[in-house]
């Protein structure tokens, strides 16, 4: 399970839980992972709360984090639509058409709050475009050949 954190005004992550615990965050650091409705302090979110027992560590900042941090949205992962359209038309690649679909699925998951799922589909979109760019010179030259 990937976890994002909010620190010094910047969103960081995704991290795995063991890596997260080595970052030196405290119980007030806002965290989010798939399944959480909104950002929560690490000491409150069910997955991280056991590692931040109340009173175990000194609380240097007794005042809570500013409220707007908790309602801030995750950044939308790229849909790569410009490249998907360009490569579909110019390279005639089924992978590029698939990349448009995965981009749509990524946008759809983002809208429903499934940020980690949206990131996964964005990763797949990137891979489909990588395959298109790497394969196209070969298919064009060896399959298509040149007009003379």
């Amino acid at each position, binding site marked *: 399970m990937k976890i994002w954190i909010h620190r010094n005004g910047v969103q960081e992550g995704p991290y795995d839980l063991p890596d997260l615990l080595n970052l030196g965050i405290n119980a007030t650091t806002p965290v989010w992972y798939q399944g959480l409705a909104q950002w929560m302090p690490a000491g409150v979110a069910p997955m991280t709360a056991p590692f931040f027992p109340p009173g175990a560590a000194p609380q240097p900042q007794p005042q809570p984090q500013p409220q707007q941090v908790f309602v801030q949205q995750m950044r939308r992962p790229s849909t790569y*639509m410009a490249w998907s*359209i360009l490569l579909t038309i110019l390279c*005639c690649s089924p992978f590029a*058409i698939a990349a448009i*679909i995965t981009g749509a699925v990524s946008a759809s998951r983002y809208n429903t709050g499934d940020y980690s799922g949206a990131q996964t589909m964005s*990763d797949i979109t990137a891979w489909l475009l990588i395959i298109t*760019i790497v394969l196209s*010179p070969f298919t064009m030259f060896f399959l298509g050949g040149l*007009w003379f």
Partner: protein
Amino acid sequence: MVLADAHRLLRILTVVAAVGIIAVVVYLATHNPESAPALRCPFKALTGYDCPGCGSQRAIHALFCGDFAASWRFNAALLPALTLALIYIVVPSRHAAVLYRPGFIYAVAIAIVAWWILRNLLSI
């Protein structure tokens, strides 16, 4: 973690692809693909059918000649597709939420596939 690196790899590859595309476009400015050597569509070579992008090289050359009617005839989808790609590049996403609405993106995919089928059925 390997998957997370896809975005960095893609950034490098898109620079390579952009250089390749620009090189072909510059070549097409002075060469007519109907008489000079040009790239050939692998899908058409394999199946004999047009792909959504077939005719793009002739259409781009026609654009350089200022012949929009001929460009439209060779590949009617080229100009709309290039325009849409340009919009995605230049318009910041916070000003055009509709571009990132799943329904709109699905519509783009359906339009491309419909164009692919129709142009083969109607020979356009």
